[in-house]
């Protein structure tokens, strides 16, 4: 063990009260940082799960100047084989007018292969009445959003009249109602792909594909691979850039504030260390007389600051993790559940990478902050230091 570390550790141990205060200040700041990071990531993940996961991660559309994708079955097979793709669902969608008794509204009529659509969306879990799979096993049936159902005043079993200019008017029986909590509840309806093709009066074609990825963060990369098939493919970050922007802004401002807290705590350590330099003047002079170089004196104090920072970071992350887990256990009052999008507990995500980055950053920050008091100690004149006391 180098003697600089020996001295640094001993002095930290000897100044118990100061050490506890310094470590405590850093630990507190780091704890707040750790908890806040866990909440931030938890809420971000939750946001991704509730929004991004309901979106198609990648949307494939027809070639330019084309309205439809022909021969889509091979295309589905090919895209399913692209690395990173977990499911593909072809669809034929368009506008339609829905009429029940005297109520009439326009909405989207989306023809899908129900089993495939199920793989790329949460539609099955969003069903509040009926079974989404019934679309697969019956003709001229429809699943509609809860708000649209309310406005049309239809119930499962009722038949709605669907029409549109240039389309074959059909009467479709309602077999299910879904509720997502989003605007889709009043603007979207599902039917089978066959029925949609009959309605829009087209052969066996589609006008788009929804793709689900194993990792939605790779949307642009996988979209680029899919484009090699010759069709246009766009990731969710391109189709819904506002989601990413919102998260980025919140994360950044949050991190800036927390970074400042840690910097302030580190300055506390610097001032404590500055005091201890003054208290150790004659010791520093004697160390120089014993042959300690200016560099070694500096090292002793930078080490002290770094060690205090490291201790603070370790204590802070450990208590922060414990506090985060505690917060994660907390059950939200049932009444407020709707307010927070159906959450029953506070989402907490602790990433080991974040913890390591926090520890390393606080350690380095304190090493740097220690340079000032260390410099004060190093530039003491040994003659004056020894003559003092």
């Amino acid at each position, binding site marked *: *063990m180098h*003697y600089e570390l*020996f*001295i640094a550790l*001993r*002095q930290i*141990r*000897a100044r118990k009260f100061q050490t506890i205060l310094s470590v405590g200040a850093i630990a507190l700041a780091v704890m707040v940082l750790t908890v806040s990071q866990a909440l931030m990531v938890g809420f971000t993940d939750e946001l991704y799960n509730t929004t991004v996961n309901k979106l198609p991660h990648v949307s494939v559309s027809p070639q330019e100047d084309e309205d439809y994708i022909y021969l889509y079955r091979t295309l589905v097979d090919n895209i399913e084989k692209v690395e990173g793709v977990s499911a593909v669902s072809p669809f034929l969608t368009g506008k339609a007018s829905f009429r029940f008794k005297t109520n009439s509204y326009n909405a989207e009529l989306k023809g899908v292969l129900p089993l495939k659509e199920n793989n790329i969306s949460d539609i099955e879990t969003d069903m509040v009445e009926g079974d989404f799979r019934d679309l697969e096993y019956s003709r001229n049936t429809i699943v509609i959003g809860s708000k649209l159902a309310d406005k049309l005043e239809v119930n499962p079993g009722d038949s709605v009249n669907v029409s549109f200019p240039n389309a074959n008017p059909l009467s479709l029986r309602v077999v299910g109602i879904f509720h997502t909590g989003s605007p889709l509840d009043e603007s979207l309806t599902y039917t089978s792909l066959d029925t949609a093709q009959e309605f829009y009066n087209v052969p066996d074609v589609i006008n788009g594909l929804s793709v689900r990825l194993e990792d939605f963060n790779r949307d642009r990369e996988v979209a680029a691979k899919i484009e090699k098939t010759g069709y246009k493919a766009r990731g969710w970050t391109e189709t819904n850039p506002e989601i990413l922007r919102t998260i980025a802004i919140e994360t950044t401002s949050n991190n800036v504030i927390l970074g400042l807290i840690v910097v302030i705590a580190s300055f506390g350590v610097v001032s404590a260390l500055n005091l201890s330099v003054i208290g150790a003047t*004659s*010791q520093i*002079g*004697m*160390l*120089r*007389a*014993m*042959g*300690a*170089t*200016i*560099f*070694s004196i500096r090292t002793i104090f930078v080490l002290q600051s770094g060690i205090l920072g490291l201790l603070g970071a370790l204590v802070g992350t450990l208590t922060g993790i414990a506090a985060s887990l505690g917060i994660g256990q907390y059950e939200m009052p049932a009444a407020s559940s709707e307010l927070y999008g159906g959450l029953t507990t506070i989402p907490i995500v602790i990433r080991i990478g974040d913890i390591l980055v926090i520890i390393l950053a606080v350690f380095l920050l304190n090493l740097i902050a220690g340079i000032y008091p260390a410099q004060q100690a190093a530039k003491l004149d*040994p*003659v004056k230091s*020894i*003559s003092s*006391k």
Partner: protein
Amino acid sequence: MTEESPIIELKNLTKSYKNGMEFRALDNANLKIKKGEFVAIVGPSGSGKSTLMHLIGLLDTPSSGTLLIDRNNVTNMSDKERSEIRNKMLGFVFQYHHLLPDFTALENVMMPLLIAGKKRKEAKETAEKLLKEVGLEDRMDHKPGELSGGQNQRVAIARALSCSPAIVLGDEPTGNLDTKTGDMIYELLRQLNKEYNQTFIVVTHNDDMALKADRIIRLVDGKITVQ
């Protein structure tokens, strides 16, 4: 036997302070000290005794003149080189012991050896031997706060000797002790000097002590008057 070259040689060594007018704390000092000599430095307060010790001890830099230690010109060396000479060739005992308060007597004596890069075990063995020599074998694990003034000064002497320095510098090492303890410490220094043939330069106010030295150097107003 031919004349041995001196271990310390001062040539016109001067230390001056300027605030308004120039003031020479050490004025044109010329001095040769042989290996193994025990030299007492005497003189009134403010005559430049400490200044001389700090210059020889490489804690201070001269304003002009040359200082040779073991025939090496140390006047213009870097901090690293000077630190290494302080560590390996020089041992210090000051009026105050300046022991590190958070370390035991043993650890304090080990410190110069650790600074020299010696292994813990080796440093410990040497330090134990020296503490025995100064009569503190049963106080090795005590911190300075738990020892008397005389005991602490003996620890400081053991520390000064730990790297077997060629030169030991004492600036009023007994100045802070009662007469009886002071005499004992002085005797100890004299005895160690004879035992190990190290060069000792000791500042003292006590004439009886000075008379026991091989040579007395008297300083008056920064000038060496008697050799």
